[in-house]
């Protein structure tokens, strides 16, 4: 790995809450997300089979339950890989079904009104 590099992706105003963009930065495909006003960047390659993770559906999911119950939550925080449907928490990158697996995350900051990703 070379030294870390910072890249301006777009103006923060171009990514309102609930939205996502898949962008190419320094040759890498990256998904940037606005979850309730907070910004996150994930590598657009699923740790499972390399599928286009960041092009998958965004939504909520069933919360851990005690017994046969279906409580729905984490609305807007759950990204399901476009290929095989693995669920990831956008805010942490962690796979819900297997906490030992995480999607690669990148720091994404707002600087002077721009979204700046650090690779």
């Amino acid at each position, binding site marked *: 790995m070379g030294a870390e590099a910072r890249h301006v992706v777009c103006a923060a105003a171009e990514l309102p809450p609930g939205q996502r963009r898949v962008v190419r930065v320094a040759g890498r495909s990256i998904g940037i997300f606005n979850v309730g006003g907070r910004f996150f960047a994930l590598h657009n390659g699923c740790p499972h089979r390399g599928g286009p993770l960041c092009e998958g559906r965004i939504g909520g999911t*069933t919360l851990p339950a*005690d017994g046969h*119950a279906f*409580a729905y939550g984490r609305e807007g925080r759950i990204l399901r890989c476009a290929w*095989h449907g*693995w*669920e990831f928490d956008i805010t942490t990158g962690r*796979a819900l*079904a*297997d906490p030992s697996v995480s999607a690669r995350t990148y720091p994404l900051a707002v600087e002077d009104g721009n979204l700046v990703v650090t690779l």
Partner: protein
Amino acid sequence: MIDCDVHNTWSSADELLPYLPPAFREYLVRGELPGGRGSFPHAHRPWLHPEDFKRVDAVPPGGGAAGSDYGFMREQLLDRYAVDVAILTGEEAIEVSTLANPHYAQALARAHNDWMVAEWLPRDPRLRGSLVVAPQDPRGAADEIRRLGGHPGIAQVLVSTGAQRPYGDPFYDPIWDACAEVGLPLAAHLGGQGGVNANPTGCGPPTFFWETHALLCETGMGHVASTIAQGVFERWPAARFVLIECGVAWLPAIVWRLDADYRSLRKETPWLMRLPSEYAREHIRLTTQPLEQPRSRDALWPALEDIGAQDMLMFASDYPHWDFDEPRAVQAPAAWRSAVMDGNARALYGLDGR
């Protein structure tokens, strides 16, 4: 060495008469029976073994059915192979699951259990019994588990793999509750492939006995998937599920598939907190017989090792049946052998250090 599948039986089902309540005693004495007087009431599977399913050399010299003579069983199995503990599984008793009348079925199961406790367990400290219940009547089964499950000679609750629905289904919650209460594993032994139970294969009935027998894994697969997916091992954290005589080589394929599909569709079962493979390794046990026989002997083990089957397999002979395995049939890797032949069963059944 622990033998986890030993078939003890009666020579005539009339031996159960003293253990049946009067209402059902009359059924056995006067009622219709599948094999005439002295046969055990059940809806027999439609695949009939063309040579009978017992070892010919296991017929006791003094007469009677193979497996009915304790002395001959001791000579031919317990002493000959230095068996420390034999888990008795009965013979036809699990077939009560095929009967439409759950009251009659449960009465027969109770009679078997009392007969086994009275007639078999006292004969040899090496013997442990299985408490047979009729799973089509989960509340009655739970009553029976609570009635007799605390007997020190009882090792497990036993049902047939043939069932109306897979054993993780909430229909069976009373059985899992009762097993948890008395601290016994639930075991399912190959059988119950007729009557009111679902077809033992998913694509319709096979034709020949050997064809059907080779598919004995199918119901086992269904029960493994069901108990894990339905969260049995979250709801009853001490629960253990034992598959007897369902084969073992298929287990890695199913466990891998369960993990893969769960990872994609976890949201369907939010009560699960771990991967299916983790539940399987901790909570599910399989007996080895009839062990698959690959052309290359060592081909069997690598996939099993991948899922931690060294913690899950338990030796069984299936004495005195036609597909019997001697202990030497299980050529497990040296590092596993003691666990598979002995240790896993001791831990599961809480056997002492004998």
